[in-house]
């Protein structure tokens, strides 16, 4: 059993909440007391039938406004997989929420209302999914019941979507016709759409191959914490604790510590307090080096034969997440894994129109939800890879030095 993390995206009323509710309901992840709570909720929209969309309805602050404003996480599992849904809805703050939810996702479900076809919002969601590098995309064409379960409607949307997103080079797109409300093609193949002969949604989610989403080639381990018991018995114990973000390590591997460039060899690897001969991506481990060199939190241990870039100048795609606009020349903390350095946003190359995918070179102010390309200078060198190659070592956030708020998501080019 493994874990699939996914996000759902759609315009308001495309049926996102209903779809999530349906998945949870049909996988029996909703308990009777939670159903009672939904039933007792005054705003049940559908007379008599259970309004599944209320399952994902969140905090009271949001309920009072009648909209969902933040990312909520939902869980369900089947015998094959554990699923983590980042439900990232919202109106004005949509880009920010979706970027947040998407950052850890293996898969995005992009909802389209069959009656409306591909809309501006669909493009925006797809662009963000591709920018964040979500490896798998499901285009869920919903409300098929309202278009007579028509194969033509479905086919035309597939053609439109394919054409509109051609320039994004999406890796893997799966199209599924659904009725979230009535349950068509959710768990079982719909008898209303015999022309669709492929997987229903849940089956696809259970079986889509995600092993290859992890990079086992480029070994990167950011040091989070140095374990030094300094007791009599463990006087010389010095272990570098961290999570292997990609690649793997074996005892005896020649390694380099970055950004210092100091070299050594792996003396031992511990995982869960047990010594192991090798360890690989996603494991939290403790590494021991042959030589007594200076290693501290924020350093990255890599294999000497395969090094990332070390530099103070970064080219990044960014999404601005703060209500305060970006002021060029302002200083921010840049955090990448466990490394924090001071930095400055130098030049803004262009802003991306997230609806049309066009680049805008006019120098407008960068505001909340803007996606743009810029250059950043850091106060000292950092080690990184391009985001396209390695999500884990090409990502960073900017933090406002005065408010401490996370103001931007950065994808290093």
């Amino acid at each position: 059993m493994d874990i699939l993390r996914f996000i759902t995206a759609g315009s308001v009323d495309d049926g996102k909440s209903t779809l999530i509710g349906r998945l949870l309901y049909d996988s029996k992840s909703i308990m009777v007391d939670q159903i009672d709570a939904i039933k007792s909720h005054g705003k049940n929209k559908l007379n008599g039938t259970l309004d599944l969309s209320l399952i994902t309805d969140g905090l009271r602050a949001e309920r009072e406004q009648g909209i969902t404003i933040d990312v909520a996480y939902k869980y369900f599992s089947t015998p094959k997989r554990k699923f983590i849904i980042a439900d990232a809805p919202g109106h004005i703050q949509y880009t920010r929420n979706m970027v947040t939810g998407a950052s850890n996702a293996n898969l995005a479900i992009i909802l389209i209302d069959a009656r409306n076809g591909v809309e501006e919002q669909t493009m925006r969601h797809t662009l963000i999914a591709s920018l964040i590098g979500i490896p798998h995309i499901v285009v869920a064409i919903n409300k098929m019941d309202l278009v007579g379960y028509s194969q033509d409607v479905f086919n035309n949307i597939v053609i439109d979507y394919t054409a509109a997103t051609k320039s994004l080079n999406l890796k893997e797109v799966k199209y599924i016709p659904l009725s979230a409300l009535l349950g068509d093609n959710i768990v079982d193949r719909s008898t209303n759409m015999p022309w669709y002969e492929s997987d229903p949604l849940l089956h696809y989610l259970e079986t889509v191959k995600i092993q290859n989403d992890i990079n086992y080639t480029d070994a990167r381990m950011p040091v989070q914490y140095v374990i030094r018991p300094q007791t009599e018995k463990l006087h010389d114990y010095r272990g570098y604790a961290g999570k292997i973000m990609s690649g793997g390590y074996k005892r005896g591997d020649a390694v380099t510590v970055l950004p210092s460039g100091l070299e050594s060899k792996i003396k031992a690897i511990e995982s869960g307090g047990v010594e192991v001969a090798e360890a690989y991506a996603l494991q939290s481990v403790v590494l021991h080096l042959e030589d007594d060199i200076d290693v501290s939190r924020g350093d990255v241990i890599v294999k000497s034969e395969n090094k990332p870039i070390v530099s103070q100048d970064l080219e990044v795609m960014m999404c601005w997440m703060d209500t305060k606009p970006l002021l060029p020349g302002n200083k921010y903390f840049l955090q990448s894994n466990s490394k924090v350095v001071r930095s400055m946003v130098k030049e803004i190359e262009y802003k991306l129109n997230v609806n049309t995918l066009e680049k805008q070179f006019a120098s407008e102010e960068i505001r909340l939800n803007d996606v743009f390309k810029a250059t950043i200078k850091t106060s000292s060198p950092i080690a990184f890879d391009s985001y396209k190659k390695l999500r884990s070592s090409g990502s960073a956030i900017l933090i406002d030095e005065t408010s401490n708020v996370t103001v931007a998501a950065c994808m290093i080019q």
Partner: protein
Amino acid sequence: MNYQLDYLDQLESEAIYIMREVAGQFERPALLFSGGKDSITLVRLAEKAFRPGKFPFPLVHIDTGHNFQEALDFRDSLVKKLDEKLVVRHVADTIKEKKLTEPVGKFASRNALQTYTLLDVIEEFKFDALIGGARRDEEKARAKERIFSVRDEFGQWDPKRQRPELWNIYNGKIQKGENVRAFPISNWTELDVWNYIRREKMELPSIYFAHERECIEYQGQLIATSPFIKREAGDKILKKKVRYRTVGDMTCTAAVESEATAIDDIVNEIIATNISERGETRIDDKVSEAAMEDRKKNGYF
């Protein structure tokens, strides 16, 4: 070679990563230890994150005075085995010092008063981060909480001012007086916790397993008789075979009827159940639909 990590290994590794981020980013962290299965799981994860070193934080227990004796005994023996520091602060002392009003009623719960003791202990030790065992599957308000959740000086949580949390990058920067609540097992469900306990062969307080207990049946829930609840003439007192799904205060935690005497039986019961953990066992959440959200905003964990 099959590199793929099992889902429990992935959850474990993520939790260890979060704990190490807390240790790396904060000067005075602490681990909030309630004696329940979730905080016992946190302790196991801390061992995996920091051994053979010492934990870079003490365990802190806010004792409401309404605890199950079994849970307290378990706490003390665990701490002894671990050889780590435990700080205990009593809600009863806070009530005396601050002249707080004890809640009244049949199941008068000190749950809300815990917040005062918690804020005092944060102040006393100048804690800047508190690790807690909350899970997002527990309840709607938790489902939206960050893994690093910033609280102001009053311990308050503002759902509208949450920082975006991207990738595995946790922003722990705070102003003086603020603190961060960190939740390493956010992404675990109740069943994940039990599966992990089973896999790790962890010990738990005996009340998690089926045992005979004298209970009051109250609005369909079973509440253990104890000096902390008011008995009334009409009370239906029963002897039942029960276990606890969560271990909180004796005043506000209900037992469930069960025959499960081993972990395997419990896992099977959890898989078969159709009532959520909170719905079945917490008396205090039913009061209002937004009960938890209100408490969190006021500094509750």
